[in-house]
């Protein structure tokens, strides 16, 4: 028999349980769901850009320079008469591409190098010194140097932004591998004769996934902002490739005439980075509150 208070609660829970599973999932981790929706929205904008955009993003008509938002140019035009609305949409593609590929690139290399460092004492010494060396050089300098010295393209931007992130991922992976290596289930696997590479792939790496996914989401977010910094310092993605970063960088000299050039891509970038950060936080709390929180 329940006290009236518990009985009352019971009915409310009953009603809650009738809701579809999705809504209950959303109620439990609002941060993740909000972030995911926002991110899907941005991804949709990027994917459907050609159909939504009103103009070709690279097409200049110089007569229409620096026009305020109008029927024809929804968000106005930039210093070379290009439509800001279309460029913001297409910019989503480049910025998201840069963000994702930097995250993937640094995560993959990070896993490989980190695991090797974690498992072989000899390699560990060498790798960690090189990593310390790379971390000692401020990330943005490494990126600007790379960008100005190698032929600028979206690919080089990705490499330039990913390189300074790799040491951080390697350090994280190495520390995780060192703890996982001591776990009994690893020793058990080795005891049953499974060869090292198999142990790595089947046992070690899956356990890295949780903190790595969370770290990758933060790298994804900071990479997009990093790209804006690179363009700001004059070493970013090529001018004719629209990305939020170089739109804002180009727009900064005319910001007092038409702040829309910085405002709209800024909002888009802000929202996307916010979305990715929210997803990162949500994943962290959902997947593995204990290990992930160590970040």
């Amino acid at each position: 028999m329940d006290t009236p208070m518990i009985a009352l609660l019971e009915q409310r829970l009953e009603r809650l349980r009738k809701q579809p599973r999705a809504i209950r999932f959303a109620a439990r981790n609002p941060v993740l769901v909000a972030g995911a929706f926002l991110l899907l929205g941005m991804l949709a904008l990027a994917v459907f850009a050609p159909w939504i955009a009103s103009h070709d993003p690279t097409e200049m008509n110089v007569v229409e320079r620096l026009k305020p938002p109008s029927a024809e140019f929804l968000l106005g035009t930039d210093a070379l008469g290009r439509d800001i609305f279309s460029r913001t949409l297409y910019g989503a593609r480049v910025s998201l591409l840069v963000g994702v590929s930097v995250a993937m690139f640094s995560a993959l290399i990070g896993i490989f190098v980190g695991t090797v460092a974690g498992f072989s004492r000899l390699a560990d010494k060498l790798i960690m010194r090189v990593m310390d060396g790379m971390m000692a050089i401020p990330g943005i300098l490494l990126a600007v140097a790379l960008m100005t010295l190698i032929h600028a393209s979206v690919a080089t931007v990705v490499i330039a932004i990913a390189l300074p992130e790799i040491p951080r991922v390697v350090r994280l992976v190495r520390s995780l591998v060192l703890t996982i290596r001591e776990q009994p289930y690893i020793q058990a696997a080795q005891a049953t004769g499974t060869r090292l590479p198999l142990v790595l792939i089947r046992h070690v790496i899956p356990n890295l996934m949780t903190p790595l996914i969370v770290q990758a989401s933060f790298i994804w977010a900071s990479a997009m902002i990093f790209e804006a910094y690179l363009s700001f310092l004059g070493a970013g993605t090529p001018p004719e490739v629209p990305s939020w970063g170089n739109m804002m960088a180009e727009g900064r000299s005319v910001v007092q005439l038409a702040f829309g050039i910085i405002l709209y891509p800024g909002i888009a970038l802000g929202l996307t980075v916010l979305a990715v950060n929210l997803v990162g936080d949500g994943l962290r709390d959902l997947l593995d509150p204990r290990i992930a929180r160590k970040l």
Partner: protein
Amino acid sequence: MTTPYPDQSPAAPILEVEDLRIAFVSRDGIVRAVDGVSWQLQPAEMLGIVGESGCGKSVSAMSVLKLLPGPPAMYSSGSIRFRGEELLTASEVRMRQLRGNAISMIFQDPMTSLNPVLTIGEQIAEVLILHQKLSKRAAWKRAGEMLDLVGIPEPNQRLRDYPHQFSGGMRQRAMISLALACNPAVLIADEPTTALDVTIQAQIMELLARLRREMGTAIVLITHDLGVVAECCDRVVVMYAGSKVEEATVDTLFARPCHPYTRGLLAAMPGLDMAADAGHRRLAEIPGMVPSLKQAAIGCRFAPRCAAAQECCHVTIPELVVVAREAPDHLAACFRACEAFRGELA
């Protein structure tokens, strides 16, 4: 062997728990962790609370000091009275005055129960300075005495050590000295020896018994180890699935257990004398699993696993009854308790 009672005058109990109900509210359902439990604790008495893990014994102990985290935990009814003062409705300020001063607690895992970055001396002195307004020097001196009391060699020197410099057993001793520093009336020990190995376990239990005698502290011992209960406790409460199923003095409980669950527990204990005619007999075990506490109880929670279960067991919740006139303080929550007392139950 039970220690002789101090003059057990039936004075007012120092701690009373009456029809306590605690539920944990979460989206997946309401867990009725404690479903109407009542027990009393006499001054300088040692009460054992026994039961499988998840039966609500720790929850009820923690609720005495209201240490359960607010939102999920909810006291849906009942009362806890310390020297007659109702604690459930007491203010947080009042509770803080009692915690560590009038009622204190020691926990199961000594490895993590002490703050790793503060010295042992600081952690003991802190409670003395807080509650007894001692000066820092006086508090440290008292702390040294406490460590000596619990049998830690060169106490004054060890005060400046950090927890990681103590062994498991010594940490539990430090925990005890910390808990008893302000000479509390009640000490709640939540499975103090489970994490220790047997030899240290015996020393800790012997220490608790000694301190109880010397300082007259009433102790509530929460454990799942019937051997420990048999050695040190005066009275025993057996809990199952959030409610009290049997209560008796240690002797009567071990001599004539009435509730089928208690009988099952005792049967499951491997006795030393059994080794002689071992013949590879399997240990007796209680079939089935502890029931989920997410639904309200309909009949007796133990019915599904109880060999002696009858029709009525599944329908109505058994009341606590006195098993026999000659043992007035032996209660059991089972319709067939009296039969069991008379030994007529299989």
